[in-house]
């Protein structure tokens, strides 16, 4: 790894002040940012890394006033193992449990998971070899190239990369909010195609807490993931749903630049009792707007997305 300066932040304000100046990046668990730095995938190598782990009190899971509150630095493994999360926020516990490998879950934080960079292989190629749209260049190499894992809901600002997070769709389905040092953001507004990142966070903005409203009794949530290998692999498609009591929220991920909420599908299943056939037709509704990329190499993901939605719904029965 090339050299950089490393600062242990003592408070969120201090970290934000350092972020404001210069070419600086945050480090939480380090599982994403250190890989990006070692392989020099970004056009700008950070000159300063600000360590969030030295800030006290950002690692907690608690329920307060009908809201589950998770500190940004909470490890994914702790979320996956938490009885509280497992009991009422099933989709999130399952999503955390199915994220990456046990080791990465022991290190990776929920804040880092929702802020991670895309896994598009052109973007990720060592030494910043493809100056693609997401890096400020003119071309998307995946559009005409190898794109079998890329977007099935079209390009955003010329980029067809997907958001790879497993926890993100669970947070959207559970109608969570993301609190930062500056504001509280609805999960659905949190992501966008930003060069080269994937969130709408400002330069000196830091996620401090995830807030999930407690689902009413009788509302069930579920998460399902398809990956080539069971452990360690990023999702090819994943889906989370929360259904019951006239409520229905369904979110796919790894299918678009940000988690994709399936509004049509939600309208179809809301208020109905769940069975195989309406879960299937709801899955079909979820992919109504899907289309393949040039070359049709990602066509299979459309069928997969339909099945993931169906199974996520059945998981709420």
């Amino acid at each position, binding site marked *: *790894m*090339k*050299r*950089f*300066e*490393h600062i*242990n932040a003592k408070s969120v304000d201090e970290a934000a002040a350092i972020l404001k100046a210069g070419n600086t990046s945050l*480090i939480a668990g*380090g*599982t994403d940012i*250190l*890989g990006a730095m*070692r*392989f020099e995938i970004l056009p700008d190598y950070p000159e300063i*890394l600000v*360590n969030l*782990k030295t800030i006290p009190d950002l690692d907690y899971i608690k329920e307060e006033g009908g809201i589950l509150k998770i500190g940004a630095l909470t*490890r994914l*493994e702790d979320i996956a193992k938490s009885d509280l999360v497992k009991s009422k926020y099933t989709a999130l516990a399952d999503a955390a449990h199915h994220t*990456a*490998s*046990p*080791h*990465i879950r*022991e*290190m990776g934080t929920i804040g880092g998971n929702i802020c991670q960079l895309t896994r598009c292989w052109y973007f990720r190629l060592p030494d910043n070899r493809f100056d693609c749209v997401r890096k400020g260049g003119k071309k998307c190499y995946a559009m005409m190239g190898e794109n079998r894992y890329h977007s099935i809901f079209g390009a955003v600002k010329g980029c067809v990369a997907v958001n790879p997070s497993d926890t993100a769709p669970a947070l959207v389905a559970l109608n969570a909010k993301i609190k930062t040092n500056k504001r509280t953001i609805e999960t659905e507004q949190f992501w966008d195609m930003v060069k080269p990142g994937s969130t709408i966070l400002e330069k000196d903005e830091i996620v401090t807490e995830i807030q999930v409203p407690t689902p009413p009794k009788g509302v069930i949530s579920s998460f399902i993931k398809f990956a080539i290998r*069971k*452990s*360690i692999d990023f999702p090819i498609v994943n889906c989370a749903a929360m259904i019951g009591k006239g409520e229905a929220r369904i979110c796919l991920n790894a299918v678009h630049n940000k988690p994709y909420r399936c509004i049509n599908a939600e309208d179809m299943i809301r208020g109905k009792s769940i069975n195989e056939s309406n879960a299937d037709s709801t899955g079909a509704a979820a992919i109504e707007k899907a289309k393949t990329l040039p070359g049709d190499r990602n066509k299979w993901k459309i069928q997969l997305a339909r099945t993931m939605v169906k199974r996520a719904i059945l998981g709420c029965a």
Partner: protein
Amino acid sequence: MAFASGGEAQAQEKGNLTPADATSTNTQSGCREPIELTVNGGRYRFHVEPNWTLRQLLRDEIGLTSPKDWCGGMGACGSCTVIMNGRPVLSCLTLAVECNGAVIETAEGIAKVKHPIIDSYIKWNAFQCGYCTPGFVTTAKALLDRNPNPTEADVRDALGGNLCRCGTYQQHPKAVVDAAQVLKGVKS
């Protein structure tokens, strides 16, 4: 051995110096604040560069060669696993400068305390090549520290981040469950 001699000489010299109480081993000027950490029961103090990984520190400065580098530091193989403050972590994706105060255990430490996992791995033919075994054993020990009654499914789950290309995977759950029995005194 010519290719290894430089590194070995350095490691030994450091090795002789370090297990004492918090002895500074590398005090080049221009370095960062020192960090102090406990590795396999010995106390160490180092001046580390911000871009050193924990794996570099353990291997190049302390001379512990069990944390390996299989996937090139991508976090994808688990061969560099060490136990840090009770958690199995990837030393290739951990910055040394962030290890101040940490308590770390490597496969060398697990062997030194004659942990039953070692014999169990041998008994069940669960060991793999030298590149993969330390990571598996370290992850398994971390599981046993936290869960004295693991099922084979628990072991499979816990070892899910240790990847290799060969074929003794199916022996690991048996070996780890067996080691748990020995630890509990049910078996010798």
